[in-house]
């Protein structure tokens, strides 16, 4: 792809993003995603308590809302003892520290899984879309079979077979999400393949492989990159779901799904905070990634 091509894309896209910048929802979603990314980097370092040390009183409720300004001021000014802002859970673990430390786990798994899914899906989609033969047709049918199973069930089975570890969760999610990229990439490559630039390259004597890599691939990446935002959101949800049913990360790792699962039995007793706060965090995150994906898609389409 030449620098002129990039300039063209930038000129076409940037004004549209600028127009969307005024959209409230987009701003909120962007800020949440930024915050989550930031927490994934610094969350465990800024948490007031060690998120895996269970030495506080169990089921401490969060402080009353009216007490928050005073407590916040005391915390910011360095006075007073650290506060359990979101209360503590059944083990005496600080819920706030765990909520802000969890993005490192959830986002790492989601981003890595999405990255590996891209690594599998993009080349496979390029092959399937550009070089259409019995081999690539077989590849597509394998991809169809993978997509025909419910993702959650398949993920559970894969993790159960491979063993319950973070690496295996990443691998399972990558395998299960890669068909999305295969199909998206293939469709886009087929569109690009019919364009004049491909014919022109052939006329200039470029090899098919060179045309596929140099011209078709860069022009087909847009939809997959847009899809990434949505996939990361869903991967976070799936990671949390796996942990919720006991097939995900192991306790006491701070992880939203695990926190919801462990706190669920207390809801009936009025102890809502161990599961509601991670629930809010996960909803906000998934929604924000999906909203961002929507924004990017609209920007790309227009």
């Amino acid at each position: 792809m030449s620098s002129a091509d990039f300039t063209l894309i930038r000129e076409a896209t940037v004004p549209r993003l600028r127009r969307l910048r005024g959209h409230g929802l987009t701003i909120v979603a962007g800020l949440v995603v930024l915050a989550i990314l930031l927490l994934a980097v610094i969350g465990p370092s800024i948490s007031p308590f060690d998120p895996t040390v269970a030495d506080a009183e169990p089921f401490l409720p969060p402080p009353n809302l009216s007490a928050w300004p005073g407590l916040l001021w005391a915390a910011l000014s360095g006075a007073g003892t650290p506060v359990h802002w979101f209360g503590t859970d059944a083990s005496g673990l600080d819920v706030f520290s765990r909520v802000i430390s969890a993005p490192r786990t959830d986002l790492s798994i989601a981003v890595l899984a999405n990255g590996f899914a891209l690594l599998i899906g993009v080349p496979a989609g390029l092959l399937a879309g550009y070089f259409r033969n019995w081999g690539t047709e077989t590849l597509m049918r394998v991809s169809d079979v993978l997509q025909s199973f419910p993702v959650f069930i398949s993920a559970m089975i894969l993790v159960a077979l491979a063993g319950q570890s973070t690496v295996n969760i990443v691998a399972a999610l990558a395998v299960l999400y890669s068909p999305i990229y295969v199909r998206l990439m293939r469709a886009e490559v087929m569109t690009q393949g019919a364009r004049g630039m491909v014919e022109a390259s052939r006329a200039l004597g470029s090899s098919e492989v060179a045309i596929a890599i140099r011209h078709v691939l860069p022009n087909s990446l847009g939809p997959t990159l847009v899809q990434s935002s949505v996939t990361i959101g869903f991967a976070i949800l799936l990671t949390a779901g796996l942990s919720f049913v006991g097939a995900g990360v192991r306790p006491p790792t701070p992880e939203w799904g695990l926190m919801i699962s462990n706190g669920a039995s207390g809801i009936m007793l009025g102890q809502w905070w161990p599961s509601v706060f991670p629930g809010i965090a996960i909803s906000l995150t998934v929604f924000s990634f999906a909203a961002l994906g929507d924004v990017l898609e609209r920007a790309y389409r227009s």
Partner: protein
Amino acid sequence: MASHSRRAARTLLIGLGSLSCLVAGATGAARAADLLLLAEDVPSGLDPDGPSIALPTTQEGMVQMLEPLIDYEPKGPNDSGFVLPDFSKPRGRLLEAWDYDPKALTWTLHLRKGVKSCAGNEFTADDLIYTYGRALSTSGAVPNAWFLLNMGSIKGFTNDVFSTDKAVADAAKKLGDGIKKIDDYTVVVQQTEVNPLYFVNMAVTISQGVFDAKEMQKHATAADPWSHDYANNVNLPSFGAYCLERWVKDSQISYRANPNYYRGKAFYDHVVVKKVPEAANRLVTLRTGQAQMVQGLNAHQYDSLKDAKGVKVEGVLGNEGLFVVMNFKTKPFDNIKLRQAIAYAIPYERIVQVGYSGQAKQWEGVIPSSYPGFVKQAQPYSTDLAKAKALLAEAGFPDGKGLDAYKDAFKLSYVSEKEATLGPVVNAISTALRALNIPVTLDPIPQTQYGDRQIVKKDLGFAVNDQEKPIGVDAGYAMKLFFVSKEAGGINNMMNYANPELDALWVKAKIEGDPAARNKELADMQNILMRDVAWLPVVEFKTQFGLSDKVNGLTWVTDNSPRFYDLKN
């Protein structure tokens, strides 16, 4: 904030009232029941030698219908209302009386007359002979009944039944002169050595309860001469207080009071046990008054019932305990000093409070403290981090240095289905041990996997266990079950503990005729086990039930299953 929480809880309870309606509405029978018990499951089978014998909910079903030979006089209620037994006062149930001849090593059992089964058959010596014959046949999935008779040194109940030589095994499976019928109401049982466990084990209903032989034989087939299939899937004919009315596995079981029961018909004519898998749903249904009894809640949930109107919680520090398994075959747990260091690092009081809402106490021995023969250690392990550090250094790991090489060994396994109960406990343990640089990670595994690794493979390196209890009320029984080496006849020695000194003491204690000398030997065994931290006893916790405040008379039996017969309004 606490009042906010209570308000929130109330709102939730009202909101979830409809859920309890669903539970009750699921069965018309339940609505009409005299007593509705909501449980985590219903019996998966009813055969004492069946594959599900280890499941508490299966045992709970059996004990309502099976009648034991003896039990213990009630001692009176504890402070929560639970009626406790007096283990020093055995009383006859199906036995009217018994004589023991120490010279001849024979027990003469005088059977109660006029006892009738649910089918109307009269109890005679033939029923007891059938029951013992069935045990010796070891034809079921698990030789549960045989095991206790073997443990009691009954003549003929030898390991030959498992011989690979078919002729030897077949011959060993036939009742010889170890059990003799004298007349319809007298049976003589011969022991091969002095052994008090035969008598103790008679009270273990889930193993030694007596069948209605006539009814069982009606359902025998050529392929299944001891009617295991019938007992496991259809009915358990016996002489107990209740008769089976309807049983839908995985859903519901209901009982009718035995009209012929020799101790008088039960107060509750009709009892329904319904499976409600979610503990919170059971709790809500009890609070709304649509069930009279619930079980299987965690300590926090029971605690929440204490202030509820019309509901009470009864509990007993009986024989349930939580201990840590450290496998002697897994390095570095073969290091006694390291084991002791860990024992001094455990935050006992925090576990009592966080894991059990205060409804527990530190376990200061290796057998239940409610059992006769329990020896409280003069200096039990306590939370003493300085001592733990010193012992860790003596073990060759100063400040935990060198333990990183054993990271895999320090995966603390526990049953993942018990996360609500065990989660706080394992978090407290791992927090305490990590403070000493012991590299503990948590390893929740499914119940089936845990059971397989504990009982079959015996390869749990480091684990928390809260599900083992000796049902026979005897210190020797408990130690033979869990600590005697496999070579010396140990059964459930999940730690692979093998100490010739302990085994030799057990050989002596097993046949010791003098009770004082036996108690001394059993005490020495307990001291050795605590010294070696054979398993690390952490807490004894209460066996609890939630009840309508109109239901009284709950009695504690060592299998921890309530006896519906004892319940009254």
